[in-house]
């Protein structure tokens, strides 16, 4: 719009209708903006409501400790005034627990439905995450605390248990006499917690809300994070090593031939992930194609040989049934299968960048006296870097959040963080921890996504 001169000898330029051209242009620009906005509106709302909201709620779940504060307000109030946290709290604290249980147990929602029992159960689960044993202890105590004296003649029948509670509770279950249980309340007293995040990296709160390491045998997640990183890096590197030469070949061959070879790259890309996993199971299992082939073709020689210097030696060069290599349901399996699955994600971006590198540059470099190798390293490789970068980030992003492949072929030592998110979601039902691990994973991916968008541009993504 800048190249239109706005002032003329006769004043501003006018359109046919007598409106200044500048105004008319601005108006039409605004109209196109509004039209574009209306076009985007529905898809944007759809994605915001049904994709962004669920994920945002998942994130909030990772710091949420509100429920337990609703269930035990008196107890947490008492916790604040509990002075010496190395000795058992006084009678008031025990009474607060019982009162909280009794009040919460009768809690109803606006429709008159009891929600208190559920709340107590969930609180017990939550407390177990801080110190194991809480859940059974709490449920046992709930059962006792709400018993009423049926023989009583009064309108509102009194509870069987009455003050003082301290001795009674410890007599019922000696865990109430353990100070560790009471100390663990400290980690839960705020409505928002970082506890799940700490848990996800093998840390925890102590009684005074200091962050400390978990007990040795409970430290599991750090290994998993490291393995996730290790698998993603290894897969990225292997993909790069395999993809770079192939992309170069595809980019330098005549279009007709490279298009045919491209089918080999695109066909797996388009084939169902599960099909590819099944295919690899056939290849890699104990009695799979690879092991069978090795057993069949490798020479088998066994016996005594008279070697120079060594004398008579027993040589066993057999690749028999007992030598079959375990390649499935372990770390190796995960790496092999993920490399094959993600290889097209590496080849395609590198290929599309290499296609744009003029072959004449290499020839010019050689003309100027460079050896072919030197010309390739100094002239060709730098120009292919954008493709390499794109491919590496893409493969790494996809690999780090992988779930299906490790779950099916990973066995025990090939599992990644995605599998543990699923495990916490579906089996242990520690949703807060699942959300915390998911959030950490999500931010790692989003950071890489940002880098990708910044340097390569997300709309430059090519798919086949």
């Amino acid at each position, binding site marked *: 719009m800048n190249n239109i001169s706005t002032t003329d000898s006769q004043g501003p330029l006018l359109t046919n209708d007598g409106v200044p051209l500048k105004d008319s242009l601005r108006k039409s620009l605004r109209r196109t903006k509004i039209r574009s*906005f209306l*076009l985007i509106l529905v898809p944007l709302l759809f994605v915001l409501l*049904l994709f962004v909201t669920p994920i945002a709620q998942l994130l909030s779940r990772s710091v949420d400790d509100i429920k337990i504060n609703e269930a035990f307000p008196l107890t947490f109030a008492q916790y604040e005034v509990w002075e010496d946290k190395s000795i058992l709290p006084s009678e008031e604290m025990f009474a607060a627990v019982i009162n909280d249980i009794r009040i919460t147990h009768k809690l109803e929602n606006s429709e008159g439905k009891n929600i208190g029992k559920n709340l107590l159960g969930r609180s017990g689960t939550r407390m177990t995450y801080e110190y194991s044993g809480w859940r059974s202890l709490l449920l046992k105590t709930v059962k006792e605390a709400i018993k009423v004296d049926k023989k009583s003649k009064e309108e509102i029948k009194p509870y069987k248990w009455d003050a003082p509670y301290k001795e009674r509770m410890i007599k019922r279950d000696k865990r109430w006499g353990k100070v560790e249980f009471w100390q663990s309340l400290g980690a839960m007293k705020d409505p928002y917690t970082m506890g799940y995040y700490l848990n996800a990296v093998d840390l925890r709160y102590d009684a005074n809300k200091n962050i400390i390491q978990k007990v040795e045998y409970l430290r599991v997640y750090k290994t998993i994070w490291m393995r996730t990183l290790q698998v993603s890096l290894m897969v990225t590197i292997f993909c790069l090593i395999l993809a770079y*030469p192939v992309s170069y070949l595809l980019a330098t061959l005549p279009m007709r031939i490279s298009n045919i070879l491209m089918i080999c790259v695109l066909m797996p890309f*388009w084939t169902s992930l*599960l099909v*590819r996993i*099944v295919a690899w199971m056939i290849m890699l299992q104990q009695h799979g194609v690879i092991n069978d082939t090795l057993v069949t073709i490798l020479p088998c020689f066994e016996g005594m040989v008279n070697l120079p210097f060594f004398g008579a030696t027993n040589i066993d060069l057999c690749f028999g049934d007992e030598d079959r290599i375990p390649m499935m349901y372990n770390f190796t399996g995960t790496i092999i299968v993920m490399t094959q699955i993600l290889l097209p994600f590496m080849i395609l971006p590198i290929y599309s960048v290499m296609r744009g590198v003029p072959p004449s540059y290499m020839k010019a470099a050689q003309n100027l006296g460079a050896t072919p190798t030197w010309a390739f390293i100094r002239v060709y490789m730098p120009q292919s870097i954008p493709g390499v970068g794109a491919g590496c980030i893409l493969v790494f992003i996809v690999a780090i*959040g992988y779930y299906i492949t490790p779950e099916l072929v990973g066995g025990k030592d090939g599992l990644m963080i995605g599998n543990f998110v699923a495990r916490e979601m579906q089996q242990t039902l520690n949703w807060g921890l699942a959300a915390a691990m998911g959030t950490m994973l999500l931010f790692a991916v989003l950071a890489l996504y940002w880098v990708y968008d910044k340097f390569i541009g997300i709309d430059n993504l090519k798919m086949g």
Partner: protein
Amino acid sequence: MRFPSYTTPREKLWHYSYRTFCGLVLFFLVAPLIVVIPLSFTNSVFLQFVPEMKIFSFETWSFNFDGYGTRWYKEMLGICDDNTGTTVCTDRWMIGIKNSAIIAVFATFFAGVLGTLAALGLSNKHMPFNRLIMALMISPMIVPLIITAAGMFFFFAKVNLVATLPGLIIAHTILGIPFVVITVTASLAGFDNNLMRAAANLGGKPIRNFFKIQAPLIAPGVISGALFAFIISFDEVVIVLFLGGPEQYTLPRQMWSGIRNEISPTILAAATILVIFSILLLTTLEMLRRRSERIRGVSPN
């Protein structure tokens, strides 16, 4: 291969080893898929090449196809003439295919419409927050599936969409949108806006102009995006595992449980059909690509 006369033996060796390496990598990519096909015609119950499957015998110098048959295909179709009782007859595969098809068709349609609308809107360079919205629309492709699935599970549980077909369709629509946005944006990048100006100059109404001029030109982009969305939905298993109820048995979910629990060659029959299906899709896409290049007057090379 003809080498120039000045080629040294070392260069020749390098050349051949380089080609061999590339050949091996390409083989690594396709070999597993090819292995599935013969094995799916096995007559045995094992997921491996058993001795009976040897086609050619060197001892008797004759061919032998006794180890092969269409048993597992029949089983997949729910036709059971197997009286040996080695396998459980189930119609889950057919139900799975039906469910997958229903979900994929609807999800593709919605993703196609919403993705195209978004791409059209985003093609306006003057639009504020253009880049941000673009990143947002593409994010379902980037966010790990397991996180999407977990988030949607909690959210859909609140609005009673868990274990329903509409819930799965919505989830798959969201997964498909980024692919449509990307392909349509790419085809819009090659679109000459002067065509629309010329049409407007000639007195055409905007809506008519869109359908008569812009739509046919970006159609290949829309269709290839829709094909992506279809294949993504048809192949999706993580979200189905989280959101699907016992009624929503899809093909990938059946394959998943086939791999995890009852390993039988029925999975291979399904896999073979999916491989053939993907070859068909790939061919369609390639034809679309050529067509769009021809329309725009760009030829390969």
